[in-house]
């Protein structure tokens, strides 16, 4: 089986919060008639330097057409020649680059083809299934002012009604609002909400973070994330020595993972296939395992195609010590698949169909086709107009 054509469709989804995310849906056509699905997800992180779609098309035509979908390692090895940095060198946040996302999107479609050709789910190409479902966590972005608190509590009531009871919360923009929110959360929902962690977003000098941690620790959470400046591994290690919960950090690349390990910076690797595909992420899981660290599986918030890749990777890794973060299909109001990937309460159900186990709905995809470019609209990743 050989890939004969690459089709790219830019689409736009809205989030429950009203912000817009843009994605590119990939379809790899083959000489056997099978079509592989992939997704380059949530490109708004790169709002400042979005890819040129025509150039991307030319590049992927050259890189992917003619490829045998079963030769995953070979694909990555060749891609390293053209995108030398992805998976190997990247800073902490975001834990992926445009290059790594392109790699992940194509790889996903190649795996989908391989699985479909064999009539087996992708997890069987990754070592087989360790679990049928993955625990997940819904993100609550920071309250920016005290007035946000009531609105957030209403949003959480909606989630609870859907059966979603595990949250993570971003802190640090307005500490008063953070504390008010967490206190109100416990007042209203008690312990029925599981607060997995607080994400400090790399905003703090580690000593300042520790004071904030002490102030917020009565509200109960299992881990803290991004506890010091992005490259301050020693600062993270200082925090780790002093707190009672696990210290977790995004892992972007081999280089950064090794720095984390050497510095004793963290307890938990937060790993996403966006750093270099399922193939690459599996290597980061192995690195954590070798270093005696714990893991959770993360996300950039994909639609159902990309979330299926999270599910297959998560199904096949040896251990997941904390709940993961991939809830894109719950965040977005639109999707491009016949059925969205399934959640039951806090759990993501691993698809059992062949390949990724996801079926594209072309009409839904066409309905949300849209340009990547549009500066004026609100976007969560821009840090500019974000809500």
């Amino acid at each position: 089986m050989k890939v004969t054509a690459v089709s790219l469709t830019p689409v736009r989804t809205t989030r429950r919060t009203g912000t817009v995310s843009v994605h590119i849906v990939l379809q790899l056509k083959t000489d056997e008639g099978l079509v592989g699905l992939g997704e380059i997800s949530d490109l708004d992180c790169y709002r400042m330097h979005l890819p040129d779609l025509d150039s991307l098309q030319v590049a992927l035509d050259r890189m992917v057409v003619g490829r045998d979908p079963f030769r995953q390692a070979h694909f990555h090895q060749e891609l390293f020649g053209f995108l030398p940095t992805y998976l190997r060198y990247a800073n902490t946040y975001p834990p992926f680059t445009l290059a790594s996302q392109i790699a992940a999107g194509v790889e996903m479609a190649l795996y989908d083809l391989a699985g479909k050709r064999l009539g087996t789910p992708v997890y069987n190409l990754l070592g087989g299934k360790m679990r049928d479902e993955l625990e997940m966590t819904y993100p609550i972005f920071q309250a920016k002012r005290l007035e946000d608190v009531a609105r957030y509590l209403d949003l959480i009531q909606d989630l609870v009604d859907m059966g979603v009871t595990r949250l993570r919360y971003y802190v640090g923009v307005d500490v008063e609002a953070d504390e008010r929110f967490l206190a109100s959360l416990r007042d209203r929902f008690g312990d029925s909400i599981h607060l997995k962690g607080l994400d400090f977003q790399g905003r703090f000098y580690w000593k300042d973070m520790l004071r904030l941690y002490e102030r917020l620790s009565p509200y109960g959470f299992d881990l803290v994330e991004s506890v010091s400046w992005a490259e301050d591994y020693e600062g993270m290690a200082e925090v780790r020595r002093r707190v009672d919960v696990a210290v977790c950090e995004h892992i972007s690349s081999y280089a950064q993972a090794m720095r984390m390990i050497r510095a004793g910076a963290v307890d938990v690797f937060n790993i996403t296939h966006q750093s270099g595909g399922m193939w690459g992420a599996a290597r980061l899981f192995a690195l954590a395992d070798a270093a005696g660290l714990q893991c959770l599986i993360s996300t950039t918030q994909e639609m159902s195609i990309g979330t299926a890749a999270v599910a297959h990777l998560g199904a096949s890794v040896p251990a997941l010590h904390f709940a993961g973060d991939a809830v894109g299909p719950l965040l977005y109001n639109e999707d491009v698949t016949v059925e969205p990937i399934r959640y039951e309460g806090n759990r993501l159900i691993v698809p059992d169909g062949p390949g990724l186990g996801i079926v594209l709905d072309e009409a839904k995809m066409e309905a949300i086709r849209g340009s990547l470019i549009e500066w004026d609209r609100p976007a969560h990743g821009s840090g500019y107009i974000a809500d």
Partner: protein
Amino acid sequence: MKLSHLDLYTIRVGRETGVTNEHIIVRLESTSGATGWGEMSDLSHLPMYRFDVPQLELSLREILIGADPGQFNAIERRLIGFFPDEGHMYSRSGLIRQGIDLALHDLVARDGGVPVHQLLGGAVRDRIPVCYPVFRLRTEDQVGPALDRVQTKLDEGFSTIRIYVGSAPAADEMFVAGFVERFGARVRIKSLDFSNLLDWRRALAHTERLTAMCDVMLVESVAPRDDIEGLAEFRRRSRWPVSEHVHGARHAWDLLRRGGVDILNISPYVLGGLRASLRIAAVAEAAGASVLVGTTQELNLGTAAAAHLGAVLHALPFPADNTGPRLYTSDVVTDGVEYEHGDLLVPTGPGLGPVVDAMRLKDLSSDGRWSFGTDLAGALDRTVAPAGASAASRDGSISK
């Protein structure tokens, strides 16, 4: 004075080696009518995911229009928020920030009628020794033409070279042997540059073999990327100073603290312009280390900026690498930088020095679309890859 206009021009410029490279020229204009020009140099290093230029232009306008161009620090801090360090060379963020940083300095300096170095503390030298690159040899057939090229450059006044090595050791040895025989003491070798191709042991062994035949001033990138321990092992064992490209302040600190280098290679295109480069130079100075000014092969605007940077550094003990204007066959400026006896002269005109010519800008403009042909390996390597090119050259190495 406020910034009122920002425009980006994508241009395509050929090199004497036959390849073509894309750059973005930045034009800023203020409410008082002052203009400044900058350069995002050689974007062809990023062929697989080139950014959308109209979108970039839109974003930068949104961020910069209305700002006081003299508020360098505030503008830089804001830009870093949008275009953070990416943890490696050839980052888009560094190139974008360099383009803006250069244009801001050009604008403010032109407006004041002074050269850019006066905004950076003032020049302590009026010329900077530079070296000419001998690109990585992949086959022994390439040795003869490479030696002939050294002669050509010597005739043009460049008496210092740097050699990219490590891909085909036998060819490297042939080259150095031939070089010693033909040029002896007339041409100096600034460095052997391994471009992170080899682990430190193999790089050290190769260095020993080559430097048994000739002296060098330093060696560069003698361990895999990010392998600071490897650099340190090499540095302990070798009598030659070790240099490595710096891709951020934290990286500079790590390289120095862990004994990985004697020299920091500071390149505005990686670090995001002049001010970011000066901060790294200060780190090196505090650590008692040296710096050298590196290149991605800039056009005249970028090369002029490197000259202003080199002009203000307290100590600049090693030749710089900035010979881009001699490598490219055309440019967008009229008054380009000048070289004399192998030195890059620090421009004395206002601003960066070179003056952008509207006609030339128009002639070189490209539509900003893919233009790298079908040979992706050649696009990445900046060469047309010969048949049977070695695997190493495709394995993530980028020779200039």
